[in-house]
């Protein structure tokens, strides 16, 4: 559940965005700029948050009127070990230490649905966090670090599976399916792809983030569409984009089928006029953009 500190939309004077180079960060930056809101978009090359010297630079940079969006993290493809966990916590420590010294008007922390137990099939914001791996532990710990900041309005966003153009990750789902279809002419599923998941387009994630900035929203919000589809369905949608036959291959199931549905009532309450990009349309968009790029 989130609460809007601004009943009416009100542009923050400036947004400081950590993790701006990534797939999600780029999309958020783009939509912030569309709103004509000044943004400082920092990449890890410009400011290494894992470096202890980062705090001093951040203190000099931040203004009490800034809205801060913290996206920077080493994702699981960079490592799932304890060392990666500790680096990620150090990054958050730097941001929190700087905010404690400089203050800010709003902190949006980008967490993950990895904070929930993977066995839970229906998720709301009230679902107890119970991370099953170090990546989930990292995000949940960073959420608590964010909330420990006194006098700072904090919003935690927990996005589910994000897809979209420019995704550099190759997680199981629409992006990987599209690459596989394009490169190999086939999509390989785990089992029969029976598992249902909620796939949210990166532009929706960015649009919701901007809305939260405009309303200075606080609390915790799952970023999901509320509609789950099977991986098989996602594969079929991807295959449909190609003018040639794309083979969808089932494999012997190694793990039991699990499902994940999001009850997005709180999101509807927060933004009752928000319209998600349907996964059918989103997959078509991604494909079209990829084809244009080639």
């Amino acid at each position: 559940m989130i609460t809007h500190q601004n009943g009416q939309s009100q542009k923050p004077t400036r947004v400081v965005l950590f993790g701006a180079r990534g797939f999600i960060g780029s999309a958020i930056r783009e939509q912030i700029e569309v709103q004509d809101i000044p943004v400082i978009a920092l990449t890890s090359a410009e400011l290494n948050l894992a470096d202890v010297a980062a705090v001093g630079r951040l203190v000099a940079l931040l203004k009490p009127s800034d809205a801060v969006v913290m996206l920077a993290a080493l994702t699981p493809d960079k490592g799932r070990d304890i060392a990666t966990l500790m680096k990620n916590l150090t990054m958050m420590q730097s941001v929190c230490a700087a905010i404690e010294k400089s203050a800010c008007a709003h902190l949006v922390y980008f967490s993950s649905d990895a904070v929930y137990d993977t066995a839970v099939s229906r998720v709301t914001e009230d679902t107890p966090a119970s991370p099953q791996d170090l990546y989930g532990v990292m995000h949940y710990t960073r959420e608590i670090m964010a909330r420990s900041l006194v006098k700072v309005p904090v919003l935690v966003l927990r996005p589910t599976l994000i897809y979209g153009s420019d995704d550099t990750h190759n997680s199981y789902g629409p992006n990987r399916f599209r690459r596989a279809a394009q490169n190999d002419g086939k999509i390989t599923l785990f089992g029969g792809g029976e598992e249902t998941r909620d796939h949210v387009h990166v532009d929706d994630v960015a649009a919701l983030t901007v809305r939260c900035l405009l309303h200075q929203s606080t609390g915790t919000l799952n970023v999901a569409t509320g509609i789950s589809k099977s991986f098989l369905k996602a594969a079929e949608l991807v295959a449909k984009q190609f003018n040639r036959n794309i083979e969808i291959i089932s494999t012997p199931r190694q793990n039991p089928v699990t499902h994940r549905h999001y009850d997005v009532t709180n999101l509807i309450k927060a933004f009752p006029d928000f319209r998600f990009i349907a996964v059918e349309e989103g997959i078509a968009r991604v494909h079209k953009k990829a084809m244009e790029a080639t």
Partner: protein
Amino acid sequence: MNTPVIGFAGMTHLGLVSGVSASEKGFSVICFDPDAARVAALVRCELPISEPQLDELVAKNANRLKFTAAATDLSACDVIYVAPDVPTDDSGRSDLGPVNVLLDSVFAAARKDAVIILLSQVPPGFTRGRQRPGRILYYQVETLIFGRAVERALCPERYIVGCTDPAQPLPPAYRAFLSTHDCPILPMRYESAEIAKISINMCLVASLSVANTLAELCENIGADWSEIVPALKLDKRIGRHSYLAPGLGIAGGNLERDLVTVCNFADQYGTDAGVVRAWVANSRHRRDWALRTLYREILSRMDDPVIAVLGLAYKQDTHSVKNSPALALLEHLKPFHVRVFDPVVPASATPNPRCHAAKSELDACDGADVLAVMTPWQQFGRLDPARIAQRLRGKMVLDPYAVLNVTACRAAGLNYLTLGVQS
């Protein structure tokens, strides 16, 4: 023995209905409330609540009813019920302050031989803690149902009486009053009676939660819950009066209060209340059915829709909006144009500043893209779906309680959605 004079202290919903019903049974009744303005209104027959039959019974029994703001008038009573409504906060917690104050004033005003009966909904342990040496105090379970309060008071199924010692006979005046209702009287210790009240409500909530959980599954699987209900009611273990109609969660305040009470006591004593918390969560989830459905069908699809809402009260035949699903819905429709109508509750009760107060059901439908029937008022069921279709701009009708005639709605070209059926 002379016919006892019965007193009722606390002229809110429970006390007023109980007092008026006692007068209908032929007893002289003294209705006391310390609020002089409230009493003055009652003397003028201006009732603060809406209940079927209540206005008629007040007029009919005027010669047996005495409304007073003077506690000393209670000295004429042989039996005095202390029956103020116990208010709850937003989290369902009771405010027991007013009932304590009223009980003190009744003890002070009543004769020493008067039987004092606590009728308000109080937590387990409350009554024993109020017992005073040399005084006669009982606790009686109330089973008031909003919208059926008079009927329930006149024809109770049984009386559950909490006593210091259940083995002792009830005082003659008290027994004489209860006996006129011709139903079983079940004496038990105070705490058992207090928990009996909660137990009744928990059984009702359990049934409702079953109905809501399975109705939602029906909506997704393609079954029709309304076809299943008769089969359940013919099962003697479930019963024909069981609460199996799916709804928009628990509302009205009383059931919610008991859920909170059970959870609080479970926390205090370390007992398991997981199932009770699950009922609460399920209730909250189902309360938002209309919002989720509206979002899926209308809000996420069209710009600036106009929404008609029929019904604001939490249920039919009552003025109460406590935890009303309609108001919960309207709370989240603030960005939209909404046209509302309720036979009793004014549009000013809504939290939505853009609400248009319609003069009638059809006026509310005028130009709307969707109609949501949020309270099952009987008069809504008499609406002609063809006329609704003429007045609406869109075709969508959300009728969670299945008030409208579904066949007629579909014949009128309306896209009809209700609980327990796949859309």
